[in-house]
């Protein structure tokens, strides 16, 4: 039964690529946003906070449609990107990565934010009296101490990106080899008369990937905690 066909492999590899790129691009951005939310007060913070978490509560099809309106070829940003930089992301795998990145962003940001909030500010003060400018305090004290949260956020974000369906299919459709991820492949297969076995194979694969990701995050978190507490 675990005889995975070439089209299924394509979908699996595409999903991994999309989720990896989405996570890697979103992480630095997520760290910046988490730091802003954890450590700074600014005008409109409550609104900004809500905006970040919006993809979590909006119907995914709404997020996907908004992405299409913004980043589609005739969209405000999409048209500009196509005309000036020659970049088209609608109906491409990069568009799938964007959709997954947006959808997983709240899950990525939350653990990072919590772990930055948990960093003892008195240690940051101590670093300042030792001559560290704010950005160096962040890089040498805050970020290393928040590392378990960063890893947890990355894994959660990755897992969400792997499984993302609604926004992705709305924004970039379901094109085999280009935008057909595991989720959309399963969706297509269960609508095909003889697709059950293949769908089940992909279901097993996605269970495997999700479990592996969770185990990896557990391992990272344990290592990071050990490192921090000096054992």
């Amino acid at each position, binding site marked *: 039964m675990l005889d995975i066909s070439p089209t299924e492999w394509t979908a699996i590899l595409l999903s991994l690529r999309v989720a990896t790129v989405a996570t890697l691009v979103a992480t630095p951005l997520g760290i910046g946003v988490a730091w802003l939310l954890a450590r700074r007060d600014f005008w409109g913070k409550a609104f900004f906070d809500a905006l970040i978490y919006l993809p979590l509560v909006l119907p995914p099809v709404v997020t996907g449609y908004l992405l299409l309106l913004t980043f589609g070829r005739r969209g405000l940003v999409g048209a500009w990107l196509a005309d000036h930089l020659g970049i088209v992301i609608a109906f491409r795998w990069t568009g799938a990565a964007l959709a997954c990145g947006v959808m997983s962003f709240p899950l990525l940001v939350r653990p990072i934010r919590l772990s930055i909030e948990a960093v*003892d500010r008195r240690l940051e003060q101590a*670093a300042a*009296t030792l001559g560290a400018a704010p950005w160096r305090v962040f890089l*040498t004290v805050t970020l290393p101490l928040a590392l378990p949260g960063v890893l947890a956020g990355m894994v959660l974000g990755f897992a969400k990106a792997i499984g993302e369906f609604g926004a992705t299919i709305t924004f970039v459709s379901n094109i085999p080899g280009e935008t057909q991820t595991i989720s959309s492949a399963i969706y297509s297969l269960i609508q095909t008369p003889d697709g059950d076995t293949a769908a089940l194979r992909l279901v097993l694969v996605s269970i495997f990937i999700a479990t592996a990701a969770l185990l990896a995050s557990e391992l990272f978190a344990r290592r990071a905690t050990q490192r921090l507490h000096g054992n």
Partner: protein
Amino acid sequence: MLRVDVVKKLGEFTLEASFTSEGRVTGLFGASGAGKTSLINMIAGLVKPDRGTIALDGETLDDSATGLHIPPYRRRIGYVFQDARLFPHLDVRQNLDYGRRMNRLTEDPAQQKRVIQLLDIGSLLDRRPGKLSGGERQRVAFGRALLSKPKLLLLDEPLGALDEERKREILPYLVRLRDEAGIPMVYVSHDAAELRQLATQIVMLKGGRITAFGGVKVLTSS
């Protein structure tokens, strides 16, 4: 020489302090809540005075009239906190080296060796702060502050979290620090006995005001 002339509203009361210290160790004496920590936090630059000036060796660090406030990381003022505040993710060696790296100073193995010997922390270098006793942690904190080559060293009840036995263990190191390191210090304490051993000059603080100033003798009159 340290010149302080500041006003700061602190919740219930207002801290008003004006003094000039030239001693090697200025003891800042007073009960808890007298405003001692707020005062040295202002000297460190961690807290901004509402009004007034702070100057060290002729360089103005704070001046509310011109809006000048040099941030802590540009002051070159070392700070030893009551709770050590060693970085838990770095070992002792990296903690000691932190200030040198942040101030982009060249390595000075001779000074490093001297400080490590002075504080007797050579055997702790590869350990993490989590594996140190309270007294050891505080000694490493002294070393970390000293090795950033500060122009002034602030010590906020550095023995406050230790029991009597540990205090007796650490005091001789502080006396050696005073006599050998050659860095002026401001030493905060509510323990007159401790200050009699260490301070060369006393600033007495009560309810946010300076009530006495002078040699160690002023401690006996209290």
